[in-house]
């Protein structure tokens, strides 16, 4: 099977030859393409070229060019962005809060989705993607990501208790911005040509309780994904970064379309997650990024074997993936370890 055939058949729920491998790769693409991460993220065209280079270098991977980052909100709402120039950081980051006083939320201007923050860059990336027959990407973060970027993560967490109404106002603003941004992308490229990778880091149960997730995050995530689905978007991946085990009941309750992919971090168990999600959803994950980065060939090989043993039991289908973004400094021999284990144990 070609990669496209494999992924298409998986999403259709049909038998495939082997487990696909999604490298979840961004900074790694920059490294093997020979550009620093500042250049990668500042230039969507170079990011796309780096993604194609990855596909050519590792044709066994089931991947496509990718672009985007999780730490958003500050730049979009009028603050600063910290670029990973000279590879100092893994990805662009919200540098400092835009506001620090809850009273300032009401007067926080709503940004123009055409020009704010990452939006123009992702539009450039999407334009090239579509020319090459790849899907366009919809805004990937949850409103929590943006809200925490606007006020700072520590303030966001404290205000959940101190100023809950302010958090709701922020989430409302962030949700509206995400939906208005998506309207533009869907309008330009068509819903059937759009995909969404919804990264969910701050809602981890290592940070907030499932009750807090239900009250402050779930309604807004549900609204955004509901909007995408109502427009006809079907290509959905949710990346649960951290331990979201206690939130899974809420994700199931959201009733996302069948064949939505749930990718999980190392903190979650593949088998248990698959059981809780059920056979309607595709499972993905969760090779240890720590081992990928500093482990030996054999350790990576064994960890991939662990993932395949567990993931292939999931009747909804399974994609092998790192637990989070492939570390840019991953030794190339460890990529070979992934391939070897996949070829030895990943065939159905």
């Amino acid at each position, binding site marked *: 099977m070609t990669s496209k055939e494999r992924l298409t058949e998986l999403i259709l729920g049909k038998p495939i030859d082997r487990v696909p491998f999604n490298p979840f790769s961004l*900074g790694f693409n920059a490294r093997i393409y020979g550009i620093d991460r500042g250049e990668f993220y500042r230039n969507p065209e170079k990011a796309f070229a780096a993604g194609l280079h990855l596909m050519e270098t590792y044709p066994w991977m089931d991947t496509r060019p990718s672009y985007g980052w999780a730490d958003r909100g500050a730049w979009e709402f009028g603050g600063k962005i*910290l670029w990973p120039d000279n590879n*100092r*950081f*893994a*990805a662009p*980051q919200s540098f400092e809060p835009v506001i620090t006083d809850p009273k300032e939320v009401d007067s926080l201007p709503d940004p123009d989705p055409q020009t704010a923050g990452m939006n123009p860059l992702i539009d450039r990336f999407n334009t090239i993607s579509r020319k090459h027959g790849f899907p366009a990407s919809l805004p990937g973060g949850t409103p929590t990501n943006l809200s925490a970027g606007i006020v700072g*993560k*520590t303030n966001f*967490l*404290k205000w*959940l*208790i*101190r100023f809950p109404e302010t958090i709701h106002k922020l989430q409302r603003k962030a949700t509206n911005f995400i939906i208005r941004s998506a309207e533009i992308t869907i309008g330009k490229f068509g819903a059937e040509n759009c995909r969404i990778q919804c990264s969910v880091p701050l809602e*981890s*149960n*290592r*940070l*907030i*309780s499932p009750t*807090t997730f239900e009250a402050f995050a779930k309604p807004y995530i549900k609204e955004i994904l509901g909007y995408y689905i109502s427009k006809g978007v079907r290509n959905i991946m949710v990346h649960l970064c*951290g331990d979201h085990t206690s939130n899974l009941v809420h994700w199931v309750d959201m009733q996302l379309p069948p064949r939505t992919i749930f990718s999980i*971090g*190392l*903190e979650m168990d593949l088998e248990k997650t698959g059981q809780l999600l059920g056979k309607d959803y595709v499972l993905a994950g969760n090779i240890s*990024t*720590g081992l990928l*980065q*500093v*482990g030996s060939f054999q350790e990576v090989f064994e960890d991939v074997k662990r993932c395949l043993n567990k993931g292939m039991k999931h009747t909804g289908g399974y994609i092998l993936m*790192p*637990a*989070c*973004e492939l*570390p*840019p*400094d991953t030794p190339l021999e460890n990529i070979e370890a992934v391939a070897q284990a996949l070829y030895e144990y990943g065939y159905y």
Partner: protein
Amino acid sequence: MQLNKDELFKRLSDSVVAMNEEKTAELAQIIVVNQIDAYEAIEKGLSHGMERAGQLFEEGEYFVPELLICSDAMYAGLKILRPHIKIAEEGKKYRVVIGVVEGDTHEIGKNLVKIMLEASGFEIYDLGYDIPPHEFLEKAKEAKADIIAISTLMTTTMGRMKDVIHLLKEENVREHFKVIVGGGPISQVFADYIGADGYAANASAAAKLARKMVSSGS
């Protein structure tokens, strides 16, 4: 009416657990006005409250938002009581240099560990975030630290922890410091792999581990 100091300490502890900054400050003020021992109040009131909050966190009752606000209450009390500590009372202070590795700007986990360590009586040298390996070493030497605590939230920067330990070995000072590591993607397996002396899954566990390390000398 004679104030019962143990009762006051209990109320101080309760107000920290209850996340009540105002009440904690009020009680701290009463302690000062009545010339009750400030150090004892910090130990049996504020630190005790923070330890209870840490326990609730380990049990899954409290999460990071609650812990952060408990710490605000604790610091509100510390601000009032600290100037009244008699120097001789303090005894030996173990020192910790703490920071987030180079390339990572996420501080919440590190700040929580710092809070719990301070509540446990450690003297903290907080380097902040995005700290190159040599700065951990330099500060640890300068402060004559007992422990170097390294944090990262991101998988992409985990390798920097290994760099710090490698540098300690290169400088022949590895045996001078205990190294503990923690953060979202970190595990005991990873800590063992890079040669750290300890790993803690959360801030409360980090404080317990640090206390164990300095009391046993291991």
